[in-house]
């Protein structure tokens, strides 16, 4: 069934794949574009909110409550609810996608900074670090693993959610799945291709970010030799 006599009814009709290379390529770029915008904007916004939550502790609970609530709303529902205000546009999708990244990123950034051992922070203060400089040179740098972990999850999750935007008419792999597959009597090839490439993109970006983490944390790999 998979690679046997290949035709329109097979699992993957390679002929179709061949003929629609451009379509697939466009879908890939579109998917990537939507993902990156969401993650970057989400990260900046989360960064800001995290700093606020860290500086004014009492805001952490409300911030988490709001972002958590947003996170609970099913993606399609959220997109649909936004449509009357922002239409079937990239903006609609991005508002939704960014909202979903907030909870995980804020939580990880805050947990990461909190996770820096208190004696370390105290030692830094005792040596004469001023609060802002300490935050950037010590707290944030040591929170890198947690922050990158959050980015990885957010990225992978976003890639999955971008496929749902296909349902509100956007491109990406979701568009491929919906336009070419579901709407054409469940033609399986584009569905399989879209799904597989979506997973592949997630894996590649996830591994890529893991690599970035390794680059940013040279101290974590070295252990006592003596």
């Amino acid at each position: 069934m998979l690679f046997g006599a290949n035709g329109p009814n097979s699992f993957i009709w390679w002929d179709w794949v061949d003929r629609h290379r451009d379509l697939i390529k466009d879908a890939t770029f579109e998917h990537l574009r939507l993902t990156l915008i969401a993650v970057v904007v989400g990260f900046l916004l989360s960064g800001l909110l995290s700093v606020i939550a860290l500086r004014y502790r009492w805001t952490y609970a409300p911030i988490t409550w709001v972002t958590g609530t947003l996170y609970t709303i099913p993606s399609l529902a959220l997109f649909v609810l936004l449509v009357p205000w922002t239409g079937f546009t990239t903006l609609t999708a991005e508002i939704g996608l960014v909202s979903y990244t907030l909870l995980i990123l804020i939580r990880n950034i805050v947990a990461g900074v909190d996770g820096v051992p208190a004696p370390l922070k105290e030692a830094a203060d005792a040596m004469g670090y001023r609060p802002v400089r300490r935050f950037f040179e010590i707290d944030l740098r040591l929170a890198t693993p947690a922050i990158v972990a959050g980015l990885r999850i957010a990225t992978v999750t976003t890639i999955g959610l971008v496929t749902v935007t296909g349902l509100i008419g956007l491109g990406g792999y979701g568009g491929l799945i919906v336009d070419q597959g579901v709407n054409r009597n469940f033609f399986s090839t584009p569905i399989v291709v879209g799904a597989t490439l979506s997973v592949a993109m997630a894996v590649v970006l996830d591994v890529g970010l893991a690599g970035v983490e390794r680059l940013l944390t040279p101290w974590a790999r070295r252990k006592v030799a003596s």
Partner: protein
Amino acid sequence: MQELSLELPQGGLTALVGPSGCGKTTTLKMINRLIEPTSGRIEVEGREVHEVATHELRRGIGYVIQQTGLFPHKTIAANIATVPSLLGWSKERIKERTSELVDLVGLDPELLRRYPAELSGGQQQRVGVARALAANPPILLMDEPYSAVDPIVRARLQDELVALQHRVHKTIVLVTHDIDEAIKLADYIAILNVGGVLEQFGPPADLLRSPANEFVASFLGRERALKRMALLRVADVDLVTGPVVEVGASVDEAQKVMAEQGVDWIGLRDGDRLLGWAWSHDLDGASELRNVTTEPFRAWVRPSTALREALDLIVDSSTRVAAVFDDDDRYLGILTINQIADGMAK
């Protein structure tokens, strides 16, 4: 904490000791304003600590803690250079200072490129001290620095601190719960009781000889005399001639000396050189003292040896005495238990 009044000597090491809850760490942290006192004044080198900006104050005070607090994401070199770079020193100056410090604390320069996780506990503590001294602060605060290392490493680090202090003469405030550590390291000890009550303040020898009250006495522990002995040296005590004769003397004279002193052994000397000792029965049948084979004194000390060590050697020897030699191995005299006891009583 209750009200506390203390004056710590400049250039010396003061230990703050006491049980948990006595406020010794709190007191320490008030010096560099990690904790703010609710009332009172704290002066460092004549200036009230609140007169300067906090971060400026702290850059002039070294701080060493139990967990080292080394920044895991910076190399050893970068860790040591922390305060100098905060102060804006030039790269060359930092590099020079770092080499100095590495030498001062006894670290292998090869370690500079490494990260803290790659070092052993003892090495990390040394880096902590180097880091604290980097900007050459006049004052060094240490909060139980050696509690987390094993006893062998701890003893070595303590010795290194003593040696370092001889070289740099910093004003050090050391918090510890280990009274023996305090006795070993400190020029002055402040014994604190729960609630920040100062029970006694003074040099270790004074505390050991005359504890102010029951609390201090029990805190100092048993065997206070033995502990005092760790602080006194052979040089502080008078020596005796003991049963030692010139090798040129006659066998009869040797036997007379042995009988007078009530011992069954004789020591032989040749001017400044101590040849050794022999049992009295080894003299039987000997015509000359020169012909007697002697054994070297296994228990021997120098004037700088601590009395406690000397006592340990004496008790373990066959002769029940120790021979004293100066740094050029010239024979100075005999040390007995009586001499030690007399010296302690002074």
